[in-house]
């Protein structure tokens, strides 16, 4: 009844190309942003920040990054965990070298470092496709994690082999380490992610995004109409890795506080991010957020329900969770390969027609 687009006429291409051409969508998104920026910081507590919102945002960013590569450009990567590690270690080293430089700039540079590493490991994509490429990205996963684990320089030769974030102030407000307030960490993360989401949306709706999708849908035809596969694929690897690198820096700096490569960034991390975009929706910005929410909330719900509700041992609950996750992946691939984002879109289409179904 209220979700209608009739009467909203576009009089310029600019208006037609807006991110949310339908007024109701615009209002809805502005509302969510207002709540996220102006209400949540005042009510947030330690649990909500550390167990739910910050991991959700960070995973959404990693998902966004992988979705650019896999969902938009069609190149499957199983190296996400390692690329997150590159971002984390880059930010760790950079903060050590330049403690005076603004943290935001260092995170940005960490993203650029990851982008460069991503491009190097993306080079094989020019000759190979599909799961051949997936295996190539596994090389990145195992090699990089080994490197961070073995070479002392990366972790400043700390005896535990772990890296621990230094306390960092961002314009006078502590955003990392145990003294940072939940609200500060949350807002810092949210601001970065909101900005990067907007830029991702801009890229995918423009020329570069179209060339990625063209490569994804039919690479030969794309090449014959003048899209350079080299440029398209490597730019996808670069942008994707940039996002994943920033996500890794935040994952380590703001969320975990300290990290050890074999645990924090192992291959399961790569799978989790892949699952986020499958469940959320391949080739959808919204999908990364929905998928991340799903992946973060599922274990919490499972734990509350099974351990709290039925008194199941937490180890068993963990096994059930793995099983359920796998089953859900299969379910989504069978029933709706475009994930939750597509279901949301269908709901909106239904809503437009409501109460008349046709």
């Amino acid at each position, binding site marked *: 009844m209220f979700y209608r687009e009739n009467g909203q006429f576009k009089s310029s291409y600019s208006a037609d190309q807006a991110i949310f051409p339908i007024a109701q969508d615009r209002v809805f998104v502005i509302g969510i942003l207002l709540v996220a920026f102006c209400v949540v910081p005042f009510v947030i507590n330690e649990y909500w920040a550390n167990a739910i919102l910050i991991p959700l945002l960070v995973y959404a960013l990693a998902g966004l990054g992988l979705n650019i590569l896999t969902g938009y450009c069609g190149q499957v990567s199983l190296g996400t965990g390692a690329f997150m590690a590159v971002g984390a270690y880059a930010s760790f080293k950079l903060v050590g070298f330049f403690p005076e430089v603004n943290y935001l700039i260092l995170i940005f540079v960490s993203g650029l470092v990851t982008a460069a590493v991503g491009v190097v490991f993306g080079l094989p994509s020019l000759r190979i496709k599909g799961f051949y490429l997936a*295996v190539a990205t596994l090389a990145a996963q195992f090699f990089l994690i080994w490197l961070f684990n073995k070479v002392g320089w990366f972790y400043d030769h700390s005896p535990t082999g772990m890296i621990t974030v230094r306390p960092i102030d961002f314009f006078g407000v502590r955003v990392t380490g145990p003294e940072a307030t939940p609200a500060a960490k949350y807002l810092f993360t949210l601001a970065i992610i909101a900005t990067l989401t907007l830029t991702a949306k801009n890229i995918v709706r423009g020329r570069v995004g179209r060339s990625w999708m063209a490569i994804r849908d039919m690479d030969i035809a794309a090449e014959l109409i003048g899209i350079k596969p080299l440029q398209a694929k490597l730019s996808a690897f670069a942008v994707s890795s940039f996002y994943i690198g920033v996500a890794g820096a935040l994952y380590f700096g703001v969320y975990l506080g300290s990290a050890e490569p074999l645990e924090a960034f192992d291959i399961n991390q790569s799978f989790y991010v892949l699952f986020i975009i*499958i469940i959320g929706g391949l080739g959808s910005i919204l999908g990364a957020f929905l998928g991340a929410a799903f992946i973060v909330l599922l274990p919490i719900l499972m734990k509350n329900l099974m351990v709290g509700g039925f008194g199941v041992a937490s180890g068993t609950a963990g096994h059930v969770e793995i099983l359920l996750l796998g089953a859900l992946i299969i379910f989504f691939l069978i029933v709706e390969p475009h994930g939750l984002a597509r279901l949301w879109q269908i709901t909106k289409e239904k809503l437009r027609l409501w109460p008349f179904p046709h």
Partner: protein
Amino acid sequence: MAFDLFLLEVVISGLMTGVMYALVALGFVLIFKASGVFNFAQGVLALFAALALYDFLAEDGWFFAVFGFTLPVWLAIPATALIMILLAWVIERAVLRFLVKQEEIILFMATIGLAFVLEGLGDLLFGSDVKPLDIGIPQGASDWLLDNFNLYVEKLEIVAAATAAVLVTALAIFFQKTRVGRALRAVADDHQAALSVGISLDKIWVIVWSVSGIVALVAGIMWGSKSGVQFSLSLIALKALPVLILGGFTSVPGAIVGGLIIGVGEKVAEVYVGPLVGGAIENWFAYVLALGFLLFRPQGLFGERIIERV
């Protein structure tokens, strides 16, 4: 001289590891050839098979809890094979038939999901602790080789190599001489054509997944006897991926040769290069080798070159 002997031992040990990789890779190739599915769950299948076998043999398993006795080895192995066939049937019914028309990459991701399901199920049913698997394969070094050639080679590894040889021969006969084998090859060549001469695809898929399941069982037995049945078993699956890239996704000889190359390569590299860079390069050596290979010969050693058309 002593140095050469040491190298020989390293190479032999690598060959034996390679045989294990080859066994997992073989399961991959079978499924990929017949259905175009890149089965990421192959390693977890091996783990699952080993867990099921252990359950029939051990007194802390479900089978003992329900029936009050354990099975002898000669009965437990066919029983596990039956379980694998059943599993293949369930997978076909519950997963594959709904994804027949999907793109390869969707199927690939579905098998990652399948790997998680099997892993969770295995843990849930059998527990996640390390289980010793003893089906009577002799342990320790071969005395004969030690006495006569001063070579240290594990008996288990010799058995594994022999078993693999028998298995490959059996598979070759199965594919060349039997009606079902010919049907499988027909499907591998052309799905549509096979369907049009009356070969039923879902039956073929069950068969090929069953055969792969049994190959996985053999791999699971060998690996489980060597280092116990545990989750890390499923990680061999990941090692089988570079093997496939080396050998080509559709080539049985490729899987074997690729497995041996990777096995020997990573052992030799670990022993001679590892100490220089801090060790544990076994973890990534295979992938980097495969990566190098991809850049120069993307279709693998034995794969077919693809001519692209528009």
